[in-house]
């Protein structure tokens, strides 16, 4: 079947299988930043935004996204610059192996849009579905709080 999805601002018409998951479609289309790590909606590595809201692409049927807008990690920075969240994650040591980072960035962008000045606890609560095995989370929390502060002072 055919669906039309706006991916990172670009409208695309895509031929899909009826039982296909958004994660599979996106990776097939070359959005390799969307990561496959669990298939049980338990880790957040595959997070993308649909109509601005973070969801899990591993358990979202592509067919259900017809006519909607998807943002993947590839949509949050370009070749020349990093987003402030990406920059802060590097600076604070919040990215080690990097496998969970695309999902984390996509979710954090939504967090700071919905709640520009979150408390530490609110950051933790919002991002609890994004597992990381490398960092112990502390550096990531600090990075997000730092960005919130920077954006506030702008």
């Amino acid at each position, binding site marked *: 079947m055919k669906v039309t999805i706006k991916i990172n601002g670009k409208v695309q018409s895509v031929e899909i299988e009826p039982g296909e998951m958004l994660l599979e479609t996106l990776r097939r289309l*070359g959005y*390799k*930043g*969307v*990561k*496959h*790590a*669990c*298939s*049980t*909606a*338990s*880790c957040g*590595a595959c997070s993308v935004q649909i109509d601005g809201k973070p969801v899990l692409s591993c358990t979202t049927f592509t067919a259900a996204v017809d006519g909607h807008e998807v943002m*993947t*990690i*590839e949509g949050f*920075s370009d070749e020349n610059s*990093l987003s402030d969240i*990406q920059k802060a*994650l*590097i*600076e*604070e*040591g919040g*990215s*080690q*192996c*990097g*496998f*969970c*980072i*695309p999902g984390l*960035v996509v979710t954090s962008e939504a967090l700071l849009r919905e709640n520009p000045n979150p408390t530490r606890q609110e950051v*933790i*609560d919002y*991002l*609890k579905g*994004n*597992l*990381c*095995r*490398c*960092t*112990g*989370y*502390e*550096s*990531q*929390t600090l990075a997000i709080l730092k960005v919130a502060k920077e954006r506030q002072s702008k």
Partner: protein
Amino acid sequence: MKTLIQEKLNVVNTSIEKVDGKALVRGKPVFTDDFDLPNTLTVKILRSPHAHAIIKSIDTSKAMIEGVACILTYKDVPHVIYTRAGQGYPEPSPYDTFVLDRKVRYVGDGVAIIAAENQSIAEKAMKLIKVDYEILPSILDYEHAMDKDAPIIHDELEISGAYDPKRNIAAHYEMEIGNVEEELKKCDYVVDETYHTPNQSHAMMEPHGAISYFDPNGRLTVISSTQVPFHARRIIKRIFGVNCRVIKPRIGGGFGGKQALHVEPYVVAVTLKTGKPAKCIYSREETMTASNTRHAMRFRARAGAMKDGTLVALELWGLSNTGAYGEHALTVFMVGGSKTLPLYNKVKAVKFGGDVVYSNTEPAGAFRGYGAPQGMFPIDSILDELAYKIGMDPIEFKLKNSIREGETSPIFKIMGEGREGVDQIINSCKIEECAVNGAKKFGWYEKRKRPRIDPERQIAHGYGVAFAMQGSSIPAIDMGGATIKMNDDGTFNLLVGATDLGTGSDTILAQIAAEVLHTKVEKIIVYSSDTDMTPFDKGAYASSTTYVSGNAVKKAAERMKVEILKAASEIMNKPTHTLELDEDSVVSEDGDTLSFGDLQTKLFYTFNQRQLEVTESFVSEVAPPPYLVSFAEVEIDLGSGKVRVVDFLNYVDCGVPINPVLAKGQVEGASAQGIGMALFEDHMMDKNGRLITDDFFNYKIPARGDIGSIKVRFARSYEPTGPFGAKSVSEIGLDTPGPAIANAIFDAVGIRMRKLPIKSEDLFFEIKKKGL
């Protein structure tokens, strides 16, 4: 962050951003699964549903549906025995594994390799394979592996290197210094208890995966998510008799789980059979059930001390579960003693030994800490128990008996990695600073004056401390190489076999090279781990990269410096002793400068033409241990037994941290994994031996918010044999959470939990029994 050091440094000891950081946070296609080659076959593995069985017959004829390229069974792959363990050669692990065998030894063991045009076809074909099994009695509880009537798991004729396979013993070790039995009799206080540490899944976010293909010239090439590309190449050659190139792209975490060959033989078998590219990416369930787990261990520990707090004798006698295959069986077990016991070097007698047994469970393997967490849990716990018996503060007791600079332990010589070790005098040991400053920072003495139980809120608080050491490399075995090539734009290629798996080793190695060459990290272009392109390196394990590969890079950079000065002396016509390196240039005493770019340009085109390139290797004669003292504050809900780690402070001596932010990240991450092992992570099997906790839904690694704050402080330390004073830092953080948390729980409620993970359910019933 910056810590005090003894040399004036420009690049080392600063928190340079990770050299691969930008690509990773952008989600660039850098991982194994991100590589798409045209006409690649998807490879799936049919796995055994039985814990122990013989394949009586296997019929693939109905499964050869359209789109299936090949289905391989044990009849179709080389019958060559090997070990999946990625270790130096010859491996200390037994050869007891085939790519596919007629016998399956755990639920998840490989039965057939299916290669098809896509995943749906491969999965459909898998269901059409008919296998007739003869089910054998199995051993699911490793504590019964040596029972009289236990089935023999490895009865294959080809097995070699296992200690006593007829009794299911993969490895055995024992050593004694002095006479523990006699010394214990003389002690004022003796504790004799049994401790258990669990299986633990690595749960790296990136599942295992590999791709194989013939390059245009017909050279077999394997892209693999591996920590050990050079060992992988060697083992593939052993199995298939084929030379190949192994490329390690970015790795999404390994923690020891990728220090073994999991997927490579499957894809190579398919490519050799079909000539086509083959890709196999494990599902999370396969990663959890059919790769490796931490060796579960049981230790009976005995320790004795005098009234004045002198530790006299220490003994660990253990049983380790290596699962269906003996990967890292002997070495992980030995590290349980060799990287823990020297910490208490003042004892009169010490004994360590036991058996590593086979069982019909997932094979155990390397996992961050590599036995030291399993050994440290009983050692630190029993010392804590002794301290309470004596009535001494545990910090004081542990500190009084621990090793110091200038001292040694006979264990260094006696216990190595699967063989004898090497003597070493400790050049750097700041454990006293770690303990004393850590206690101050944590507020140890003030906190321990507080009441522990709040009866109104039904909450208890407790404070625990644990000490640890580790090693830096496997001395006299581990070798790392580094090549540095100078370019005419003033940059350098740094080619290393060292395997960055997320740790940041590419970055710290670039820092070391930049420091020596008086340039910036941006000018060092790192390329790591490609067996056709980079020099050999043993791989990322045994806390060796900073120390061994770092020393190799330093050596190479120093030789490059000599080469640069020599060439500059020729070009500038000045004696080398009047020349120095400074900011990407050669500078002479009289003020002339020649930039690196100009120098190599001249060498390329106009003057004494040559490429400046050097390769150096490093093997260490010693393995200087890092040290760590960790402090844990726990909060316990008396009504549910739930334990929350409120505060976890690590005071660590890792020598000079090459990159403080990355070093801190290593300790924080290891602490989190250690807290997972202590409180959260648990392998549960059904009665047939199938792992139930086989995904992130049921196997809970600590989530955000599960851990209070983890803090890291560095002691001012300098290791003279390390590159710029550095020692290792990646593993040690996993050694302390288990005992620190168990000790804190005892401090809170007076209950000694001697089995990890400490489940809220178990603690709750203990609390109830005590009537709290």
